[in-house]
């Protein structure tokens, strides 16, 4: 009986959500885990001002969001990278036309254990460390300890920015530890004195030490004026130019006193 009840509940839930998706006044947002905290905050604010609109939000990654947009199961796809050629082609094949909106800047900060004496690394040194050429902290002015490289998984948007801005398309050493999220990197770096990792500016906290890059501290200003070398834009994609609730939401998102305020609160860099 218990299982039967569960099955019935599941079926009802599926029907209910399925129906919800189609009806007006509801938005589905899915995609990049980097954009997720922004989307969540902004959606909450939007829903409190527009109680008749229901927004459901999920993460899953930029690729997952694009897939949902291509399949037509989401109204907005969050992405921490620009859409790929293959994805554009698939979307067009299905009669969908993804439109990008840059909603925030993300600044990627190299971090080390708080006990590490190193305060600054050049992009060249970072590249050397991640390639596996620089193996000991003393080579970059730190203690005589082996460097433990921690990287994001090679398919994450964060890795792509690192790959582009720091590695210059050279390969990260196979000995690098790959972690699946910003939070996991913070956890791994904060519990290992020899570790170096990199995370979005929104995830920097007291348990790790943020490094300067080329003697520039990673902040909102240095990312926007381009002096901090490792940054990227974050996007929301819609299918075609947005209409109705989707348009209202995007407008809310991009408004300097509304959505962009929350971008800043979440530790990202607002666009406007």
């Amino acid at each position, binding site marked *: 009986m218990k299982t039967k009840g569960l099955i019935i509940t599941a079926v009802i839930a599926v029907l209910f959500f399925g129906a919800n998706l189609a009806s007006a006044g509801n938005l589905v947002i899915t995609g990049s885990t980097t954009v997720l905290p922004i989307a969540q905050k902004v959606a909450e604010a939007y829903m409190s001002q527009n109680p008749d609109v229901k927004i459901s939000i999920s993460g899953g*990654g930029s690729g997952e969001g694009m*897939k949902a947009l291509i399949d037509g199961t989401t109204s907005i796809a969050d992405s921490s990278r620009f859409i790929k050629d*293959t994805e554009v082609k698939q979307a067009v094949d299905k009669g969908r036309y993804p439109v990008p909106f840059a909603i925030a800047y993300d600044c990627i900060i190299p971090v080390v254990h708080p006990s590490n004496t190193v305060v600054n690394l050049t992009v060249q040194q970072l590249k050397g460390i991640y390639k596996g050429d620089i193996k000991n902290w003393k080579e970059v002015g730190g203690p005589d300890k082996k460097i433990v490289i921690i990287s994001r998984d090679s398919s994450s948007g964060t890795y792509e920015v690192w790959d582009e801005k720091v590695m210059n398309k050279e390969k990260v050493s196979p000995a690098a530890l790959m972690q699946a999220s910003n939070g996991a990197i913070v956890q791994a770096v904060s519990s290992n004195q*020899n570790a170096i990792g990199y995370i979005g500016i929104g995830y920097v906290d007291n348990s790790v030490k943020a490094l300067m890059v080329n003697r520039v501290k990673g902040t909102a200003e240095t990312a926007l004026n381009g002096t901090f070398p490792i940054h990227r834009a974050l996007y929301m994609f819609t299918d075609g130019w947005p209409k109705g609730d989707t348009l209202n939401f995007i407008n809310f998102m991009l408004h300097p006193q509304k959505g962009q305020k929350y971008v800043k609160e979440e530790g990202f860099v607002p666009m406007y």
Partner: protein
Amino acid sequence: MLNNQHKGRSRRIKEQWIKALFFIVAFASISVLALIVIFLFMEGLPIFSKVSVKAFIFGHYWYPTSEPPEFGIFPLIIASLSVTVISSLISIPLGVFTALYLAEVASQRLREWVKPLVELLAALPSVVIGFFGMVIVAPFLQDFLHISVGLNLFNASLMLAFMSVPTICSISEDAIFSVPRELKEASLALGATRWETIGRVVVPASISGISTAVILGMSRAIGETMVVLMVAGGAAMIPTSLFDPVRPMPASIAAEMAEAPFRGDHYYALFATGIALFAFTLIFNLLADYVSHKYRQVGASTL
């Protein structure tokens, strides 16, 4: 007379309905399995138009997003196998000896208490075990053994061992407990000590059940995702020591699938990794089936 006939017919019809119902239920679960396998192959095979099967399986570099990408899962396969073997080295003695103790040595009352407790270990969600490994065990290993990384092969194996012990213990305990009483009594009557009875009579008689338990425990370890994702470290290299970080196949699939472009080469390569993983678990299951048939203990009189 007529009434009876009628009753008989309606009973037969009812019987047939129930038979059909059971057939449909059994067929449904099998067809779901078949569909998943077909889907797995459909999404995985296209990668072999880009790389050869040999280069895929024996390639040493896994750089799925580089230009040009490299899809070599050899380090991933080695990682999965080494994690499985090392975790078995820990979990098999623990599981089997616990089972022997519970079935043969412990008092009935103790057994009734301890067995559910061991089985409760299986109820721990894998993410909790992974979290434990990440937050408690990894820093401990780093400080205690002075190694550079706590997220490594050994840590992952240890956590996986925790997960397979209940499987191994519970199934082998059932096998050992069901060894016919006459066998044990005969052995004791011939003057064998308890230890000799366990070693030479009980274990050989239940070896088929114990082997099945061990293999099922191992196949749980090779397929486990969350724990290895969290504590194995994730470096796609062939480990040279027990304390090197590794990247087993399930961890790679789970970590990358969300961000892989839909129906791109990377996506296909991850599904192909899934095929390799499926092949390994299939081999384990066939082996378990074979062993349990071959060494089956048939009644007391055959010994």
